[in-house]
């Protein structure tokens, strides 16, 4: 694999939540880079600041210290080159809009020609397998389908990087497997970079080209592990590979150490 150009750079990031009841240091000192077109998974114990990190990267939160750079430019607010899929997908879709309008809303201010906008919406709904549900409202869909709407909305926005925060934590195992394959498909067919947060070790190894293990709060990068599994992955055969087991044991060990510290 050729060396990729750096797209995202997080440098000595620190985030402290200030509140009258005392400050919470959610992220201690965190640095990593991500290449264009990469699929990076972040794992870490619950409450270690994964959501906080993503919000800092997406420009929704201002870091207390350090910088986030996207394509060499410092991120100071939300940028059009990033799209977010939230952990609370149910609350991130607007219940008064149809599925189609939810996907369309972020495109309205992009000043695209009507035909192109329609095509983007159709294609992204098609890609997540929800073309038939375009006229439904989010609350008429199952959790897995709602999560797919959130993904369709994000990819229709045509970001360079797709940021996903534990997107499959609340769906059943079968749906989860389908959605994992969907993410890998989108990554390969669209060449979009993906930063994927999860607390499921197997999921991180199965999905990622690289896994970043975070320590518990105040958070640092404990380990950056390259996942040298074949690119063609399959829920049954890949997970049965001895190398898969090795890698997940490796990540598991790091998380245990991160927790113990």
């Amino acid at each position: 694999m050729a060396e990729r150009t750096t797209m995202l750079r997080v440098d000595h990031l620190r985030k402290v939540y200030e509140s009258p009841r005392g400050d919470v240091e959610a992220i201690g000192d965190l640095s990593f880079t991500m290449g264009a077109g990469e699929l990076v998974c972040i794992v870490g114990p619950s409450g270690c600041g994964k959501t906080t990190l993503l919000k800092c990267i997406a420009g929704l939160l201002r870091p207390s210290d350090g910088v986030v750079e996207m394509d060499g430019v410092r991120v100071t607010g939300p940028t059009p080159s990033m799209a977010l899929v939230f952990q609370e997908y149910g609350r991130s879709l607007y219940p008064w809009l149809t599925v189609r309008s939810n996907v369309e809303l972020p495109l309205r201010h992009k000043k695209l020609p009507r035909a192109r906008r329609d095509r983007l919406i159709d294609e992204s709904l098609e890609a997540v397998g929800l073309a038939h549900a375009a006229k439904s409202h989010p609350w008429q869909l199952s959790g897995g389908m709602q999560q797919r709407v959130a993904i369709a909305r994000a990819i229709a926005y045509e970001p360079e990087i797709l940021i996903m925060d534990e997107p499959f934590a609340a769906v059943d195992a079968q749906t989860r497997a389908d959605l994992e394959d969907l993410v890998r498909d989108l990554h390969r067919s669209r060449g979009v970079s993906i930063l994927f947060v999860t607390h499921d070790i197997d999921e991180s190894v199965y999905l990622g080209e690289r896994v970043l293990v975070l320590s518990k709060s105040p958070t640092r990068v404990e380990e950056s592990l390259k996942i040298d599994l074949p690119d063609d992955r399959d829920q049954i055969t890949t997970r049965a590979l001895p190398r898969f087991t090795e890698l997940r044991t490796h990540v598991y060990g790091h998380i245990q150490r991160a927790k113990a510290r």
Partner: protein
Amino acid sequence: MSAAARIKTIVANLLFAAGLPVLILVAWNALAKKPDEAVGAEKFYPDPVTVGRAFADNWIGPAFAHEVLPSLYRLGIGIVVSIVAGVAAGTVIGLLPWLRELTEPVLEFFRAIPPPALIPIVMLLLGITDTMKIAVIVSGAVWPILLNTIDGVRATDSIMTETADAFRITRWQRLWYLVLPAASPRIMTGVRTGLSVALILMVISEMFASSSGLGYRIVYFQRNFLIAESWSGIVLLGLTGVLLAAIFGFAERRILRWYHGMLEVERG
């Protein structure tokens, strides 16, 4: 279900709905005084037929244009102004925390004033005009709408707001596609309360100072001991209230279709 059975249930439902009103009419008729009792008693305790006749004589035909339409006009304008002002001000106040803290005590004070107490003052300022009556209606109906809008706008889900931030949704789109729809269930609650307040104030403002309108006619009849006519005015007021509720119900079902659908799904 067969056609016959369906017709049967429809008839049964109709009979059920009509049952209580018919019962009330019968009881009223039984209690009303008839012309052969004590002299003039039937004048004070008219039966339903007399009131019905007074209704036809006094409110249908040219009187409708003279007496009813002006009232409805003032009521309509009052309601529209209350909704527009309440929602607009409520949205701005709800979105700006500093403005909310600044205005909260003042709003509480004005809301606590019973609007009829304002009538003499507003009358002095604006004269006995339509504007004065509309001002009185607005002075009462705007509060529930304003306060509910503030609460609704404030309670907009933080994740929904962050979603709008992350996708860089513009200010006006955010207002139209996020803030107002998110607040719409609360806004509609406010409007429902505002409507009944508006109807009350329409009548009261006309009773105080007017030469036309429903309230004016009801007081006029009462002062001239035209009891059946007075009652017929009250019947008309009731019908106006029912009509308002029907229009509101229709609008609410359209605007909050998503909300009712969502609640239904949540209840399972």
